[in-house]
């Protein structure tokens, strides 16, 4: 449905998008996830036609659309600011696109009704945008785009301006609408929760390149780089030395314990690596108490530096030798106080080891792997 072939966009002396290739399938919910300034919005604007790539090609629906103007493309964009026409009613806003296609009035009316029904706003057809709440305006923006029956719907951080509760409702709502209309969605966001919740697949962008592309579970469980691991779910990274590689690898933490793990691509024996420990994989045990459920589990000793109650979970920061570890445990478990010495434990197996970050992140994706920015580097290769 959407094909990007070595697309590069340069503004002045800034490379906003650097040699990116990927494909979005028909009916797929695809997210571009990354921090601000990573090039994801530029990418979306190239798909919409507002920017022309400096190099590379964009295919839409099998046709070369690299230089096609926005008003000729089979795409529609939902703007971050919604961009609803303030001088038109909801109905007129939604009818704007179909009218440009010179459809008969009856068909325009049918599409308006249908789109407004999809977003559950039929009752608001005659209101002006300023008379609606932020969430309702967001739905109008969606209906206005859907009324054109685009082959691909592009969404630029559409939930960014909504409050948390509404945002969570709209995530499920967007997913429902996408299944209902069955078209491809390309969704740009910096919110990892959003991307993980809604996407069939997602691409994590970093400094103009795709750092990793895969299903939410693949990129979460098997991050391709240290920066992806840090960005998604704020993983703890523990320096280690690789003793055995592969599915049944063994790594050694400092001079401490040996741990069974799975190594990522590009790691050889005796390499330095980073053990990925998710905060929710860890739990705490009193240091002096070696019996109980944690017995036999690998772990590392430290001192509790901070305790933050977050409702469902309690978040601990534990100082260990040289590293701070974030630990997230269910709030119902017994509380440990600041300053207490504890043992941070993790389960055996299902731990993942990445090559050490050499600081040049996009290029440090692992020498053994194919370049990740070609989009072929998916979690399957390493999982």
């Amino acid at each position, binding site marked *: 449905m959407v094909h990007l072939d070595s697309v590069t966009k340069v503004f002045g002396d800034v490379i906003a998008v650097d040699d990116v290739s990927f494909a979005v399938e028909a009916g797929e919910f695809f997210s571009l996830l990354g921090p601000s300034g990573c090039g994801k919005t530029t990418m979306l604007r190239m798909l919409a*036609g507002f920017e022309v790539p400096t190099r590379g090609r964009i295919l839409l629906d099998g046709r070369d659309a690299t230089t096609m103007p926005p*008003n000729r493309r089979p795409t529609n*964009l939902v703007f971050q600011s919604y*961009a609803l026409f303030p*001088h038109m009613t909801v109905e007129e806003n939604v009818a*704007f*696109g179909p009218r440009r296609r010179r459809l008969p009035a009856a068909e325009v009316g049918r599409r308006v009704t249908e789109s407004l029904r999809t977003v559950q706003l039929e009752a608001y057809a005659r209101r002006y945008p*300023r008379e609606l709440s932020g969430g309702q305006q967001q739905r109008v923006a969606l209906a206005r*785009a859907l009324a*054109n029956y685009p082959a691909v719907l592009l969404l630029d951080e559409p939930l960014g301006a909504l409050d948390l509760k509404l945002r969570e409702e709209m995530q499920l709502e967007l997913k429902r609408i996408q299944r209902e209309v069955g078209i491809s969605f390309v969704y740009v966001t910096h919110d990892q929760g959003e991307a993980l919740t809604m996407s069939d697949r997602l691409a994590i962008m970093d400094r103009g390149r795709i750092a990793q592309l895969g299903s939410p579970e693949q990129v979460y469980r098997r991050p391709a780089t240290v920066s992806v691991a840090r960005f998604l779910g704020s993983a703890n990274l523990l320096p280690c030395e690789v003793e055995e590689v592969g599915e049944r690898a063994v790594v050694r933490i400092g001079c401490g314990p040996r741990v069974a793990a799975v190594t990522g691509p590009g790691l050889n024996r005796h390499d330095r690596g980073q053990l990925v420990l998710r905060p929710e994989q860890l739990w705490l045990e009193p240091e002096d108490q070696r019996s109980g459920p944690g017995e036999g589990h690998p772990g590392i000793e430290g001192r509790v530096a901070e305790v933050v109650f977050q409702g469902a979970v309690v978040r601990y920061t534990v100082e260990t030798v040289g590293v701070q570890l974030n630990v997230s445990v269910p709030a119902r478990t017994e509380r440990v106080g600041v300053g207490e010495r504890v043992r941070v434990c993790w389960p055996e197996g299902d731990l993942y080891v990445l090559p050490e970050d050499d600081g040049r992140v996009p290029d440090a994706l692992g020498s053994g792997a194919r370049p990740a920015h070609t989009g072929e580097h998916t979690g399957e290769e390493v999982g």
Partner: protein
Amino acid sequence: MSGTAARTTATVVALLSSPVALLTLLFVGPVLAILVQGVLRDPSVGPGITFDHYAEVLRDPLYVRILGRTAFIATVTMAVMLALALPLGFFLAFRAGRAEIPLLLALVLSEELNPIVKIYAWRMLLGRTGLINSALTSLGLISRPLEFLLFSSVSVVIVFVASWITYTTIPIYASLKAIDPSLIEAAEDLGAGVLVRFWKVVIPLAAPGIFVSMLLVYIPLLSEFATPALVGGTGGYMVGNVVQEQILELGNWGVGSALSTVLLIVSALLALVAYRLSRLRGLGAVA
């Protein structure tokens, strides 16, 4: 507490009373004088009230023709200026980039030139042997100088446009600048070509600015007399010139005042229409 409030109010009234009185005297006074002059019988005929001056102004075909021509020249000028100011304002607001502020300054500074100097400059450009005619002649495009360029309604329109373009462009620029550029992109994304984007999105959203510039420009144009006096000739003679002639040269205060009053009423009506248009459905709330 209420004592303080009362004292504050009293202070405000005291402070404002003298400027308000002065302004009332200076603005309302002359208007009243004109209204009165317009209905006073000619002193040579005797004292009394009469509507003869109005009858003369509205019946005499010469005055009617000049009134009509004045409206025509002002309307054509306004149309030409809108046709120039809209693209110019659009360019300044959305496309000029770094040149935006220098261009705005140039536009404002051009207004600071002495108007008489500007008008004479235009006479040099538009005359029989002026720059435009000699250029066209030497290029072989015309065999004899274009006569209509100077001392005609055409020259009045040209000089009007050049003198008033700043006042037309600035309010339009300001209202365009307030438009979220993503609205124009949204229209493009939804399939609108450049004309539809302009007509359905830009113009309606800039409407308040367009009406402000019409108020600022159209109404003063109706009573202008310096430009037509200097470049208009007989073909570009406007109501302002008649008023000046009647009052200053012929001492005919009655007819001059009656004409002025007619202009005042027309202007007030136009202002009302412009105000109503700017309040049209949805438009007023945009600003």
